[in-house]
């Protein structure tokens, strides 16, 4: 192994540790935020016994999942049933790899871009991997051999491919002026110009709404609507497998939030402030990004406990008849303006 390769591998491994650590710590934090947040909104205490502000409640929950008995129903399609949680988790985790979390690090004379997978097709890769997430849901629903699960996964798959269109169009519109699929380029562009959210306010709204649908969050959580489908596609899951779905949801939220803030709110950068290419810059960038993601996640929680659930036909109508046309118009406008050099 050449030292070059060794260095590269080491750098990549380090970045992966950072990214994974971030994503995995997000989950218990988010569990706590979700519970305390909802309590706050509903004017009740929420979990407040374990640790300061009940912070350890999440740990207790995690421990509970670890030690619960893992029940596999006899009638399930075993391959599907067992593969589903992994498949749900996989895209959620991998998508984050294209998100830059700081300015390029100059270290030992080499330039290390602070993202796990620095590929040209970054945004595309994100979307492609994200679109694979639907398979986890479908397999879970089908493999459970349960009509509620099946209906849930049917709803999920239809919902996902419907909103993926609007989401993708919004994303493409956002990166159109940049002229690159690489997210670091997108951040650099926003540093040089202005946060994309300003010119792309329409696209951002589409992205925002579609994000809720893509992550199966309220008000679009019809795939697991407890009042209709018990728990939808993960009805038959328990213990760690159930936890996987749980984690996947929050990680997907985090990844999508990361994409959102990177696309529309400058990512790790702050307007007008140059963070530099040293270690300080890297840490600051990571902090800035984390802060922005935290705000975005707060919005997710806020929305969840604020809006009622949609009906399925309303969901579809919104997706196809409102969001898609808006996204198309936005895309077209952006394309024309970009062509004219106005952006």
């Amino acid at each position, binding site marked *: 192994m050449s030292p070059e390769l060794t260095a590269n591998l080491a750098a990549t491994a380090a970045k992966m540790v950072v990214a994974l650590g971030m994503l995995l710590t997000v989950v218990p934090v988010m569990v706590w935020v979700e519970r305390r947040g909802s309590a706050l909104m509903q004017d009740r205490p929420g979990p407040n016994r374990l640790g300061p502000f009940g912070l350890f409640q999440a740990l207790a929950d995690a421990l509970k999942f670890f030690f619960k008995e893992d029940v596999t129903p006899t009638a399930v399609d075993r391959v599907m049933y067992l593969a589903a949680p992994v498949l749900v988790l996989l895209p959620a985790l991998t998508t984050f790899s294209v998100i830059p979390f700081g300015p390029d690090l100059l270290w030992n004379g080499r330039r290390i871009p602070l993202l796990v997978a620095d590929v040209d097709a970054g945004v595309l890769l994100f979307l492609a991997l994200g*679109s694979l997430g639907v398979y986890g849901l479908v397999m879970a629903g089908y493999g459970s051999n349960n009509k509620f699960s099946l209906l849930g996964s049917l709803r999920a798959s239809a919902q996902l491919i419907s909103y993926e269109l609007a989401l993708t169009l919004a994303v493409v519109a956002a990166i159109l002026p940049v002229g690159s699929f690489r997210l670091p380029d997108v951040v650099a562009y926003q540093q040089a110009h202005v946060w994309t959210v300003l010119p792309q306010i329409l696209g951002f709204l589409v992205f925002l709404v579609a994000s809720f649908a893509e992550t199966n969050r309220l008000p679009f959580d019809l795939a697991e609507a407890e009042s209709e489908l018990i728990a939808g596609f993960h009805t038959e899951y328990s213990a760690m497998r159930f936890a996987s779905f749980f984690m996947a949801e929050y990680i997907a939220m985090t990844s999508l939030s990361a994409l959102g803030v990177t696309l529309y709110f400058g990512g790790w950068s702050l307007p007008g402030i140059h963070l530099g290419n040293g270690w300080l810059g890297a840490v600051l960038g990571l902090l800035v990004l984390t802060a922005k993601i935290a705000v975005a996640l707060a919005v997710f929680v806020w929305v969840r406990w604020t809006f009622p659930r949609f009906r399925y036909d309303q969901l579809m109508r919104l997706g196809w008849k409102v969001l898609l046309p808006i996204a198309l118009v936005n895309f077209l406008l952006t394309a024309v303006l970009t062509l004219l050099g106005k952006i």
Partner: protein
Amino acid sequence: METAIFLLFAALAVVSAVVVVAHRNPVHATMSLVLTLFSVAVLFVLLGAPFLAALQILIYAGAILVLFLFVIMLLNVQREETPYHGQPVQRWAAILGAAVFCGMLAMLLFRSSLASNGGAPLGPLTESLVSFKGLAADLFSVDLLPFEIVGLLLLVAVIGASAVAKRPTAEERLAPGRRLPEGPLDGAEDQPR
């Protein structure tokens, strides 16, 4: 390294392809096809077509096959309904034909110039081959007409698909000359020959 990746994903592609055609459960088959597509996408990357790889996953795996799954679940397609009886020729002729096809292709391959220089390592990937910009430039200049036609085709397909799959309205269902069985059909006339 590259060879290892190729061998790994080629093997994965072949195995999953066999599962696609051999598995009796359409959901499994579809899932297996996702795997094949994924493997082929990786090979696309190896061949210097990352854009196509992304498209392959985004469109094929992310949309088309989801549609398949959707339909499978909607129609509740279970295992194949009719057994193979009475059609051994069809089955073996098909498999034999496929084998012969493979053999002929291999023969062709080894007879052609590829046999002599196909084994040689390829030159480095060029920027024009890999970059998205080159592909986009071609798409909107040289191949503009096919591109527009494909757009039209997709529009037509969307309209056609919704027209065909639309559930008939109550009047249409009651219209004379239309027969819409609600339950399974009587078997007598539908028995496979």
